[in-house]
């Protein structure tokens, strides 16, 4: 992926998180499957996890609860993430 494709992909991941405004988070699996609604039909879980780590580092999303097991992690959008999409 080039820089522009990464940007579009990360925005799509953020859009999936934005669609969930509840107190629960979404896991990598759930996000990867839902991404098809945003135009990304075949997405590897690793790509989603990388995008989430990047977005989280920018404080646009956060982990719901810290868990030891990698497969049990879940994320939700932060107010900064909502503001970012509003721009």
């Amino acid at each position, binding site marked *: 992926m080039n820089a522009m494709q990464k940007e579009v992909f990360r925005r799509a991941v953020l859009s999936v998180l934005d*669609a969930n405004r*509840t*107190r*629960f988070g979404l896991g990598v699996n*759930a996000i990867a499957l839902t991404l098809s609604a945003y*135009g*990304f039909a*075949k997405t590897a879980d690793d790509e989603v996890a990388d995008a989430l780590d990047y977005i989280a580092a920018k404080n646009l999303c956060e982990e719901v609860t810290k868990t030891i097991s990698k497969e*049990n992690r879940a994320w939700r959008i932060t107010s900064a993430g909502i503001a970012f999409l509003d721009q």
Partner: protein
Amino acid sequence: MSTPNRPDVLVGRKLPGHSLWEQLQSRAQPLALEFCSAFFNNEMSYAQAKKWLEGYGIKISKTALQGFYNSMDMRLRFASLQAAQSAETAKAELPADIEQATKDRIAQTMFEMSFLNLGENQKLQLIALQQNKEGMQGNFVLKKAKLDLDLQKFLVESDAYFSRLLDKAKELLGDNKLSQADRIAALRSAAFKDVTALKASGKLQIPKA
């Protein structure tokens, strides 16, 4: 990874139907759930929906209403609200002697499973609508099979996670009469009871190929 075929969705924030969603949210969550449930499940025509919304002081054009109806983003928002409600209900029904952190993790898993299930249903409804417009019924079967397969894969993985959680719950509860399989079945039944009830009511119109 495939190239996005809907770049319009990814650029900017002013998605179709967004203002209606904001207006519904500014009132009460049950109101948004009630409206979306009836509207997205084809129990309300555009005219009825417009009238219903006007009753709550929301004025909206037919074009905006169509945008809301055809927006996957809005349907996912609805699915997440439904899933959260379902997870909260199921969590409240868990035995009191399970520790709070375990309850939270079970509710979290239930939420994800419900979200995927409900979200996929909404996705299928939109695909069916699109296929009807384009007159390409055959393609719908393939898309449905692909979605079913993806969802099945997710549910199998979630079951494994569920199983580990239940081991923990069982450990806390000590000896229990229920087998693990029965507990999984009971928890899954609790997680999807809204969906089951909706299906049983006959109100849910799942598109057929």
